[in-house]
């Protein structure tokens, strides 16, 4: 009796120590991840003369950098433009991914494997290879310097197709067959059976694509030569040959991060679900 009690005591010490160590490691990792973001916001709230201060807390708080940012840039307009661009790209990629993924997962047709390989291959082609042809095409279409020009070549992403095909392959075939017997066509089955059941995956992927598009710098910079079209380009206004104007830049960057952070907070559960499931499949 006594020995067994001693044993459980030993065991429980061992069992509690491991989670403590794990949590400590995770906490350190979390701090490392969060620190740059914290520093960004901290810097943005410093008074302009304290901008190089290394004190961890910005005190006294100052909104001067934000005021400068709003003076120099049309933040509202940039925000709107960026949103239109990112939402356009994310929705476009989601839609094409959905349709192509559905075809690859649910249909049998000649050359399916080959076509899929080609899709995967486009994913492996570096951006720099397609950049010039795309640019030339946009110039011929006369959509350079427009948001549409940024969105158009990004409407289809191989990543979206690959991930959605993967999700749909895990989708029970019997459900699709039941819908067929119940009288739904292929198109209606996609929208009334597949999409509602893939909502977590679609939400997760949609956010991923949105964030990617939102953070895109190089391609918009190429297409939109006017520097004040989207937020990420607006940041350039604070880079000068005499040095960078860090305060307003951090303020603008802070505002550029906000929509993504908010989106994550609102849809957190769906995102985590989506990634967990795609991991299990």
């Amino acid at each position: 009796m006594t020995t067994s009690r001693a044993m459980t005591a030993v065991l429980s010490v061992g069992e509690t120590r491991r989670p403590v160590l794990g949590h400590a490691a995770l906490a350190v990792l979390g701090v490392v991840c969060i620190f740059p973001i914290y520093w960004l916001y901290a810097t943005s709230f410093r008074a302009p003369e304290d901008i190089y201060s290394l004190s961890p807390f910005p005190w006294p708080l100052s909104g001067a950098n934000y005021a400068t940012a709003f003076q120099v840039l049309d933040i509202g307009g940039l925000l709107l433009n960026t949103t239109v661009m990112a939402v356009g790209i994310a929705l476009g990629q989601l839609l094409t991914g959905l349709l192509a993924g559905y075809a690859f997962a649910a249909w049998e047709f000649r050359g399916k494997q080959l076509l899929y390989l080609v899709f995967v291959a486009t994913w492996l082609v570096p951006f720099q290879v397609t950049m010039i042809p795309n640019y030339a095409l946009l110039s011929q279409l006369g959509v350079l310097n427009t948001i549409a020009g940024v969105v158009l070549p990004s409407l289809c992403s191989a990543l979206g197709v690959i991930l959605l095909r993967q999700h749909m392959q895990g989708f029970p075939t019997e459900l699709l067959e039941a819908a067929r017997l119940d009288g739904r066509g292929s198109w209606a089955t996609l929208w009334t059976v597949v999409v509602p059941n893939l909502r977590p995956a679609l939400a997760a992927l949609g956010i991923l694509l949105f964030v990617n598009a939102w953070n895109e710098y190089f391609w918009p910079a190429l297409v939109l030569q006017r520097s004040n079209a989207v937020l990420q380009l607006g940041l350039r206004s604070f880079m000068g040959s005499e040095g960078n104007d860090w305060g307003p830049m951090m303020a603008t960057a802070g505002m550029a991060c906000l929509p993504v952070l908010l989106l994550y907070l609102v849809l957190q559960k769906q995102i985590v679900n989506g990634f967990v499931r795609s991991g299990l499949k």
Partner: protein
Amino acid sequence: MSRIQIEGLTRRFGQVTAVDHVGIDIPDGDFLVLLGPSGCGKSTLLRMIAGLTPPSDGRILLDGRDITHIPPRDRDLAMVFQSYALYPHLTVARNIGFPLRARRRPRTEIDSRVETVTRVLGLGELLTRRPRELSGGQRQRVALARALVRDPGAFLLDEPLSNLDATLRTATRAELTELHRRLGSTFVHVTHDQVEAMTMATRIAVLNRGRLEQVGTPSEVYDAPATTFVAGFIGSPAMGLLSARLDLVDGGLYARAEGVDLPVGPGDPEDGARQVLVGVRAEHLALVAPSTAPLRGVVRLVENLGSEEVAHCLVGEARLTVRGPRPLGLAAGDSVGLTTDPEHVHLFDPGSGRRLVRTPTPVTAVQS
């Protein structure tokens, strides 16, 4: 009204022939059970009837109309899948109404049909639940309700009871039979469970490796199995089969082998010296004194089933099982003598495995 005629239906998957020239005529109102071991092509056959798998060859007629190339939605057939295939994102009520909504029926009609069907199947309280909040039995009912709601000409059921526990299965079996009686529709029910087949079917179609072995009422299939496969597959314990040679003595035929000298009824001279397989069901064997018995062997194992006992005996090289009220008074290692009535002896052709019928005239192979 739905008579389903299947003619020469074949389906190949690469090298595998899953269904091989199957022909069945299923009259309106029949409860046909497709029975066979795992992988024999039952599901493939059912899916071809439903229109989910295109046949490689052959035809399917529904009330005389060729539906081989008609899409599933226009076939007037409803199917219940083994996994039930309920739409996870819809409530029970919306799951049941799905086929009607897909066919763009008016709202009022949908509501009243769903209401009727749920009342019939006792699903009233579950209407607002999602499939994942239901038990296996409840899911099975919802799947059935979704098939019923369309009022189809025929129901196709792919092992709908296999996910239920034993008690529920027995209850649901009776309910399905009752439903069939009340609706009078045609049912095609796939199972590998012979008890299900025997209790529910008006007719059983036994499949083996994609081929149709026999179609008949449960008693026909049990009492006069057309092949050795059917003889061995239906009945528990399985019918024992022993190879023997027929001898004609004074107009009477005897099956003879090591330990076997069994009268099998009258015969003609041309039947003498013929090699046959002799089959006798366990319940038709009786114990007699070993010294003079027509079948003499050794007991290998005695199983206690509670009310009965089953003794597995070795006669020559063959295994025969005897079954009777407990106690049989046998133990492993005992010598045993068995006898049976000539009318309970089944004879099969050892080459083709087909049943040999004793007509008033000689023993001849069944014409297939």
